[in-house]
């Protein structure tokens, strides 16, 4: 097993090796224990400054990263594009370089454009962590999903995971497929044909349009959110109506009971209750949705800790 990450930025799952992922998980185990202590804070990153740059809305990921950073004792600055100079026409590289000139060592960035994190890593001198770039990747979400499966089932290798819903617009789906494959899981993508990307079959996954078959096949169902903001208005673009979507692809109590077996239910959030999943299932005994959120902090602490490990004191900005 490797004891150093094979990458200096976390831009996507693509660049991680299975050994890297295993290292992140082992480190996250340590942080899970830290998070259960009476004082949930360690001094590891106390001389590191991290900028959280969110050019797109986020609640869970931003809070999760911020908590992870604060529990590692890092200094944190937050930025969201709503009230910034990007609105005045400043370019991404200029914005980030301005922030870096104030001596920031690491950048956590969410951006609506695919490839924004890779672009940034080539043009600025700081460690970059991709917190979601458009429809491309969301690596920490995939890591925490796989970590949660590992925690719940004791392994990832050989587990059958169905990723259900709006695959086309989902960076979570792509990162999950890459991560699960690296760890030896089998993956099926399931959703309406209009929300299935053309490249799906090249990912080496099974593809299905039948929700019941997908659920019957899998051990774990990761139900994705219908991204209403990317559907062109009120969802008319990709399927006739939310009601029809819920009937064909929504996970409700009746559909779950018809399976006649237990499967693990996951959802990366935020949930459209009554559309892709009903409250009965989301809050039910098979759901590990809140465990995912809890594990998210530990996994992000591990990523920050391991990336900062290669950071020489005070040199990131020189």
């Amino acid at each position, binding site marked *: 097993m490797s004891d150093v990450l094979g990458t200096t930025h976390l831009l996507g799952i693509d660049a991680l090796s299975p050994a890297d992922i295993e290292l992140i998980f082992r480190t996250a185990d*340590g942080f899970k224990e830290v998070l259960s202590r009476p004082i949930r804070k360690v001094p590891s990153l106390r001389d590191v400054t991290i900028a959280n740059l969110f050019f797109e809305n986020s609640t869970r990921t931003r809070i999760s990263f911020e908590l992870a950073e604060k529990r590692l004792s890092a200094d944190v600055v937050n930025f969201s594009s709503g009230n910034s100079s990007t609105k005045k026409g400043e370019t991404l590289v200029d914005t980030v370089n301005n922030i870096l000139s104030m001596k920031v060592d690491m950048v956590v960035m969410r951006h609506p454009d695919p490839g924004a994190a890779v672009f940034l890593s080539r043009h600025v001198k700081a460690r970059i962590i991709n917190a979601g770039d458009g429809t491309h990747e969301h690596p920490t979400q995939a890591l925490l999903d796989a970590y949660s499966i590992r925690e719940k089932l004791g392994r990832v290798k050989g587990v059958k995971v169905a990723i259900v819903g709006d695959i086309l617009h989902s960076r979570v789906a792509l990162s999950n497929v890459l991560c699960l494959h690296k760890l030896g899981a089998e993956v099926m993508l399931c959703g309406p044909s209009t929300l299935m990307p053309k490249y799906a079959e090249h990912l080496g996954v099974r593809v299905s349009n039948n929700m019941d078959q997908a659920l019957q096949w899998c051990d774990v169902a990761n139900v994705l959110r219908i991204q209403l903001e990317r559907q062109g208005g009120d969802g008319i673009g990709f399927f006739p109506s939310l009601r029809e979507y819920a009937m064909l692809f929504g996970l409700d109590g009746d559909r779950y009971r018809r399976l006649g077996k237990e499967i693990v239910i996951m959802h990366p959030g935020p949930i459209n209750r009554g559309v892709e999943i009903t409250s009965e299932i989301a809050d039910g005994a098979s759901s590990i949705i809140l465990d995912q959120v809890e594990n998210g902090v530990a996994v992000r602490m591990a990523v920050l800790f391991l990336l900062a490990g290669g950071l020489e004191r005070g040199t990131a900005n020189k």
Partner: protein
Amino acid sequence: MQALSILESGAFDLTVRRLCLELIEDRGHLGDTALIGLQPRGVLFARRLRRELQQITGDKTITYGELDITFHRDDFRQRPVTAIPGTTALDFSLDGWRVGLIDDVLYTGRTIRAGLDALLAFGRPRSVELMVLIDRRFSRELPIQPDYCGRSVDSIDGQHVTVEWKESDGQDRVLLNQVQR
């Protein structure tokens, strides 16, 4: 260069036993004492101490925990490889306990500094005392001294002290190695 053995089976057992007796002599009883071993090698010593203390006192309920200090180290970004965390098994609050902090070798004092820091995340102990099997004198970088010490060793920078345990390494002994540069 061959490793020099500085403590072996017979004397090793006696030393561990003496430390147990010293602890009992000082405290009278162990009802309010918690033994905390530091990962990775201090826990091997702490487990042995717990077993010995149980035999001597006949009391099977010695309070015991294991603490990993990886995230509290002050040098984690200066090491060539990232430290991989060990397991912390400490499921009680240390509020009010008299803690015996246990490690196998005391060298620069930095591990103990990190251990004290990590310890305080579990509450406010009434007191903390340090017990080590080997004290490498004259090599301290911080003002930290042991309260209980098995044996003091005068060693120089290029040397390395290794404690081996029957349970994990096959036999009880302390070795002084010359590190190749």
